[in-house]
């Protein structure tokens, strides 16, 4: 059964048994993986566009950033809290990585543990975002260009995180229903990549909004 594609010569094509099944799985998996990575690339462009917009707008009123609105200077965002919240999200990225590793090593117990840790940290991050939104004194979404770019970008990121949490939860349900095996788990791979991607977007946003 476990014939890998690499060692498979084309004579094995004449065989309609398990070989072919594995090969077809491997090939469709490679295609889906490529498609998924390309989707992530186009999602990167989505964020990059808004990041460009933010940098552009920010440059247009340099050096006054945060901008002065109605005569008073808007405060900076809360870096300390954001640092804490960032660690929560990065941490969830690492736990997700180990969740997938555990799955590959057929360690179901550890997989469940890490998966739930990831989901929990993701939700924690979202809660932190809510806290941040409630406390940011920058004039709201539609008040000025700072609020516009901050809430649009982080909001879009937040939606991605939320969808990611749903994605991971759905994946976990699937693993409980026995959809994936030790050798066929493309969904988990895709979920992990997506989750890493969301984390890495946050690295950039964290720098742009809090550290720049």
């Amino acid at each position: 059964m476990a014939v890998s594609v690499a060692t498979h010569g084309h004579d094995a094509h004449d065989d309609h048994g398990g070989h072919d099944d594995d090969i077809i799985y491997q090939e469709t998996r490679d295609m889906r993986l490529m498609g998924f990575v390309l989707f992530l690339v186009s999602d990167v462009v989505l964020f990059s566009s808004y990041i460009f917009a933010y940098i552009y707008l920010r440059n247009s009123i340099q050096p006054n950033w945060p901008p002065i609105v109605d005569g008073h200077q808007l405060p900076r965002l809360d870096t300390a809290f954001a640092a804490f919240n960032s660690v929560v999200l990065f941490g969830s990225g690492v736990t997700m990585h180990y969740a997938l590793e555990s799955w590959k090593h057929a360690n179901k117990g550890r997989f469940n543990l890490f998966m739930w840790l990831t989901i929990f940290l993701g939700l924690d991050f979202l809660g932190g975002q809510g806290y941040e939104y409630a406390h940011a004194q920058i004039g709201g979404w539609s008040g000025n260009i700072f609020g516009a770019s901050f809430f649009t970008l982080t909001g879009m990121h937040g939606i991605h995180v939320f969808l990611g949490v749903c994605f991971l939860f759905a994946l976990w349900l699937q693993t409980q229903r026995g959809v994936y095996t030790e050798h066929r788990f493309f969904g988990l791979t895709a979920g992990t990549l997506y989750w890493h991607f969301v984390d890495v977007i946050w690295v950039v946003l964290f720098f742009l909004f809090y550290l720049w």
Partner: protein
Amino acid sequence: MATVAPGVPTGPYHAVLDHIHPEPTSFIRKYVFSIDAKVIGIQYMITGGIFFVIAGLLAEIIRTQLLSPHGAILSAATYNSVYSMHGSAMVWFVVIPLLTGAFGNFVMPMQIGARDVAFPWLNLVAFWIFPVAGVILFSSFLVGAPDAGWTEYPPISLQGPPGTNLWCIAVFLIGISSTMTGINFLVTIYKMRAPGMTFTRMPLFVWAQFATTPLLFIATTALGAALAALFIERVFGVPFYDPKRGGSPVLWQHMFWFYSHPAVYIMIIPGFGIISEVLPTFARKPIFGYKMIAFSSVAISLLSFSVWAHHMFTSGMVPWLQLPFMIITMVIAIPTGVKIFSWMATLWGGSINWKTPLLYATGFLITFTYGGLTGFFLAAVPLDYHEHGTYFVVAHFHYVLYGGSIMSLFAGIYYWWPKMTGRMYNEKLGQLQFWLTFIGFNATFTPMHWLGLLGMPRRVATYDPQFQFWNQFASISSYVMALGTVLFFYILFDSIRNGKKSGPNPWGARTLEWMVSSPPPYYNFKKIPAVLAAPYDFGNPLPYLGLEAAPGATEATPTSASHPVPTY
């Protein structure tokens, strides 16, 4: 399984090529929600054709309005909506879907020897977004259609009528559809070529689609971001573009053109591909400079990401950026020129068979080259200061878009029509149709260069009486074009009803789609062939192995027709 002769390089991806979903039996699954790329391609073609007629009618309304310097029929406000909708519909709902969705789906999988695209279901979704988005776009007429041109520059678009919101939604949706198609095609071409079809053995139309895909899934996303921001600003008052509130209208222009310049190459590179198929077939000669043509498509595609600001020379961007943008724009003309000369060399000394597709291909060569030249003028900053915002720009982009993209579409439809329907069209009428279109087109748009140089601004409902003669000339010529279009649809209907059977390969072409019956069977190939060389060596035997199952041969159903593909 693919029959592979000893010594033939076999791509790593055979097993999956053999797979095909079982053929559907119900009408709905066969023709409405089909996942067969060929059916989807034809669906794109029909839908795009309908939008082409609507957008074409809008164009004729524009030309009729301009019969008189005071505006013959419309109020200025309505006129604004009409040209905005004309441009939007033609760009996003006619040319892009026809060149990628329609021809890409119908022709490309067959040309690489595949049975379908990589993600048939994604394809289905991508298609169905298209008519829905189109209906949303046109329904904006009910609530006040957008009126700031197809480019919808703020701040005018911020004050535009409510239909502008629908415009945002519609274009956003069609952008998602394009993105899906781009990803789908790239994976298909990368992973699903028949054994032996290395990159340098791919037909040039496949190369063209391949080069277009990054534009589709990268540039389009940037447009989506810009549109979403415009929508958010209009609906929730979030400041991005409104200068009164700290935003920047020029920001929109950057985001819009970062998409839309690559988008003009989405609208022409597949057209290049069609021309590259038609020319060698009707000149019965190998294409000249195969690799040059192939690689220049990729070069154009990549370079096109770095020239967008040539649309913004007069928008108040930083002056020192103008020079690099001007130079890179001119550099893009080099790979384009390489193609033009390769095509001319392909015709040179061939035994030329003047059928309608070839007429269109040569027509394309003439008019597109001309449009490229005026583009070169526009790329020169000092000239652009004079020409920007005038009819010269209108002339330029109609030469490249009508004279280039639409002519290539006509060429492609005539060329592949027998493959799609199994029937020939009326050749005499086809040639007449070409001449009506070609003459009508040139007579309509050539005067616009002069009008533009004399300073006639675009997008205005009335004009100075001194421009009247050439405007009337253009309007009347545009009716000739319209006549050509009506004749075109007549020819298609006539062919369906009375056309002679075409047989599998009426043109004696050599790419793989001609090796199967017309219309092709559901599974395209009974056996996936092996490919020994690029397809254009006229005079040599066909470079395919394992085509015993080709037209007329009787063989069993495709191997593993309902092979279950594990999904996880």
